[in-house]
């Protein structure tokens, strides 16, 4: 029982680790048009990538602190919302990450086949 719980924890941790890097790339690709947190979550979900809100929103702030995103507050429907958009530095990083992703995917595919 304990062993199976540990194994499931381990699998969960490995999956989280695996997704973490990919999420950055996913978020960068979707922010060429301005989005606020919830609209971005919906957009990603429509494109089959579910991200938990508690992970996505802090990630946006972290990417902004790293200079990969820009943000501004806008009032919409009487409510202030923080809108994010990719920065020029973010576009550069996105291109590099995308190239890395494709190379990695090809390598893993070869290893799996």
């Amino acid at each position, binding site marked *: 029982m304990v062993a199976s719980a540990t194994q499931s924890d381990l699998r969960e941790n490995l999956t989280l680790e695996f997704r973490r890097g990919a999420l950055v790339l996913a978020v960068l690709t979707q922010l060429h048009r301005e989005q*606020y*947190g*919830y609209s971005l979550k*919906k957009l990603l979900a429509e494109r089959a990538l579910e991200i938990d*809100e*508690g*992970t996505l*929103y*802090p990630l946006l*702030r972290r990417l902004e602190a790293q200079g990969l995103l820009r943000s501004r*507050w806008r009032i919409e429907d009487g*409510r*202030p*919302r*923080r809108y994010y958009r990719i920065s020029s530095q973010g576009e550069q990083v996105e291109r590099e990450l995308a190239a890395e992703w494709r190379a990695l995917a090809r390598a893993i595919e070869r290893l799996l086949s």
Partner: protein
Amino acid sequence: MTTELINRYVHEVGEHLPAQMRADVEAELRSLLLDMVEERARAAGRTADSDLITRVLREFGPPEEVATRYAPPAQYLIGPRLFRVYKMAVGIMGLVVAALLLAFFVAGVVQTIRNPAEAVTLGKALSVVGKIFHTAIFNFGLLTLVFIIVERVQQHRELTGKLWNPAALPPVDDPDRISPAGHVFSLYAILAFAILFNFYPEWVAIFGFTPKAGAWHWPLLRPEFKLYLPLLNLWWGLAFTLNLVVLRQGRWRRETRWTEFALGLLAIGILLMVILGPPVFRYDRIVKVVLILALIGKGMESGGRLFRLLRHPAAAPWAAGDAEASDHQQG
């Protein structure tokens, strides 16, 4: 839509964030939660009632956990949450030292001008400045130690964990919310008094300076005062522990409030024993008048605490949060 619960939640997350990012994260989080709640209500074709909000908040996660995603905890001796208070406390200490040095300098200059025959010699001046710096460094070390203890305790603060209930979140203006700065001051004062009375009783004194004698102090305690030290140490130990427990729990609870009241009664008992007992002070009458005033103050404080405890006999709903959260999970 009732946003009270969202406000409580956002405020609680903010409580665990460094001050410089708090307002911004709170504003964003509030707007994101409102979006989530509205969307869920629309999808379910119902109004955004407290039941729906509770579900959204539970899904979002316990406030402490959410806060760590925004500002991951790091190993600090004194972390960003307390560093501002620490800087302020050190600044106040620096001002006190500067004021003491200035007062000594002015007194020395005035004395030298008025009576050149009794001018302050360099040796005496250095001895006073040395004592001021010695005391300042000792207190700086003690203050830093207290902040390190508080940081450690807060890092291990009880987390609400997965079994948590948003309805049990305390209100924004929670009277039981603690101020870490207040507890730091209490811990520092307790430690300082305990060290002073146990190891340097001769420094429980009236201090002064005259050019002839240099710095002097009149000790207030007679050797017989040692009789009361075990009781005083017990009180300091209990008060120190209570402060640590409250810091660890993150807010006052009824048990800790009652303990605080009981400690107040113990302090009154000790004060009465000292006042009615044999002389243990030099200038015994004067010191005991001061102690009688302290006793009256302590009595009024304890009366006020008892009144508040009896006036609100039922535990506040948020105080029973853990139990309710477990029920919700099981139910």
